[in-house]
């Protein structure tokens, strides 16, 4: 078999860079992941199928994917507004807000989970006002989403910010001198330029949400069939020494998230087609 590489060009270091990437991915990603698959395989197809199709596990997948998706969408909207405000306007305390964005990266997620729970619990500072309105946040799927937005937000802000910073102001001026209104300038001219970065932010927030455990277990209440997330079930299986079962749940999640991320990447590739600078 012959492998074809794109001609590496005149920049030196293609082979070291390529070999290093493969080595790194193998050690840190591929080997641990294949261990998961191998462990799953020890169980036999019927057991695997039985584990991952049990109603409790299916419900947990639904909660995990549903909440992550909702949280990623919310993060994209909120994160974009924050990035926009930070890049476009001058306001007092701007650098503090800018620094605060990164806090979720640094904070132990359990701390975030506990704080959010005490805020949104029916007796909490915010929860007590929401409860009479019939809005249940803590110990409900909404609570999981809130926790995941907290975790996912910085990914969106930090992916979009550099693109906003680079945005060419003249393009907006050109659009308005051609008769476009503020909304038309935003939707037709600015937004398409930000779309690839927003998709990146979305993918990161979504992927991070799927894997998030620490903050969610506190706020979700972990009610079977209702607010249990898939990572929690994996831990539960491990505690029962059912390693193959845990691996099976993990494998199904891995495959599903890999497919989703692949899809996002394809969409993203299409949305940045115009960036190709090849002169043909």
């Amino acid at each position: 078999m012959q492998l074809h590489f794109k001609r590496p060009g005149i920049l030196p270091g293609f082979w070291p860079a390529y070999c290093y990437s493969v080595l790194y991915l193998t050690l840190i990603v591929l080997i641990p992941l294949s261990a998961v698959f191998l462990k799953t395989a020890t169980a036999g197809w019927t057991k695997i199928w039985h584990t991952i199709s049990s109603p409790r596990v299916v419900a947990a997948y639904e909660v995990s994917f549903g909440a992550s998706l909702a949280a990623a969408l919310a993060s994209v909207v909120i994160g974009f507004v924050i990035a926009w405000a930070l890049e476009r306007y001058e306001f007092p305390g701007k650098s503090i807000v800018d620094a605060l964005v990164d806090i979720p990266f640094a904070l132990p997620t359990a701390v975030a989970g506990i704080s959010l729970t005490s805020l949104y619990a029916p007796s909490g500072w915010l929860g007590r006002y929401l409860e009479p309105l019939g809005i249940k946040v803590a110990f409900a799927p909404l609570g999981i989403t809130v926790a995941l937005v907290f975790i996912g937000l910085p990914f969106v802000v930090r992916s979009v910010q550099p693109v906003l910073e680079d945005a060419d102001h003249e393009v907006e001026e050109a659009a308005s001198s051609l008769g476009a209104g503020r909304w038309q300038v935003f939707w037709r001219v600015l937004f398409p330029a930000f779309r690839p970065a927003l998709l990146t932010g979305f993918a990161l927030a979504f992927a991070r949400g799927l894997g998030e455990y620490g903050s969610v277990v506190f706020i979700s209440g972990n009610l079977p069939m209702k607010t249990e997330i898939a990572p929690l079930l994996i831990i539960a299986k491990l505690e029962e020494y059912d390693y193959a079962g845990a691996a099976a749940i993990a494998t199904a999640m891995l495959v599903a998230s890999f497919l989703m991320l692949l899809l996002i990447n394809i969409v993203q590739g299409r949305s940045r087609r115009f960036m190709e600078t090849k002169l043909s």
Partner: protein
Amino acid sequence: MSIEVRNIRKTFGSFEVLRDVSLRVEDGELFALLGPSGSGKTSLLRIIAGLEYPDSGTIHFNEEDATKAAARERQVGFVFQHYALFRHMTVFENIAFGLRVRPRETRPNEHTIREKVGKLLKLIQLTPLGDRFPSQLSGGQRQRVALARALAVEPRVLLLDEPFGALDARVRKELRRWLRNLHDELHVASVFVTHDQEEALEVADRVAIMQHGRIEQTGAPAEVYDSPANAFVYGFLGDMTLFNGEFVRPHDIEISRDTGPGPTAVFATVNFIGDAGGLVRIEVRREDTGEEIQAEITRERYRELALRVGDYVSIAARHSRVFSS
């Protein structure tokens, strides 16, 4: 449509960019704003376009006050130095943009848009490249697309900010001749900003020369070149050298081998010879004052004189000018 600028002032922070600028561009005229960088020419253009507002003064389109109108209401076509094309749109969509963003009542239908963009693509000689993205075009092609995009909305005036500034010398020359022909065809009042005096004098019907936020002189190219209002204009429109305390164009310095004594004879030695180009550039040093003087002579004359560095010659000025400061 005519453009009239009355007593415009503009400051950025503590910096006065425009100090009481007034000018009038007649309908169908191609007008150049010429000046060194920092002279305020681009700010003036942006104020005419509505991309910037003046601190005081007014802008009139056909005697109608447009000072407070937003850029999108002014119906001006603006062409940026760095094109400012929408890079996620094809060439076709870039040109169609101004038509597509019109309010529903005045928006042409798809068929009309196609027809119109097709015509503009033909005008800029890029018909086969309609579905390319801007990143797949050369600089000159991009600027032509930017021009077509501005023309698509049938602007009442066309404003161009250093339109050829980012292009290489040969493409610049081609494109400015093309712009001149295009203007003669369309006859829409156009103002372009440039720091290149050759470009301004070659292309424009009239030129305004600016310095430090003021207009130093306005007039037809021959007029400003032949009777410059002051030393700045004289120096900006062509090379100059000082001779006996007066301003002289280097090609008006005469060099001769006749070194016999005379009442007005000035003697000098040749310092430097630059003989690549249509004219030969000679730098001489005066014997009496030690001043260095630039001269330009034809190649023919250069051969006749058989000049070498170190040669002893006499110099005289054919025309010179004195400006009261």
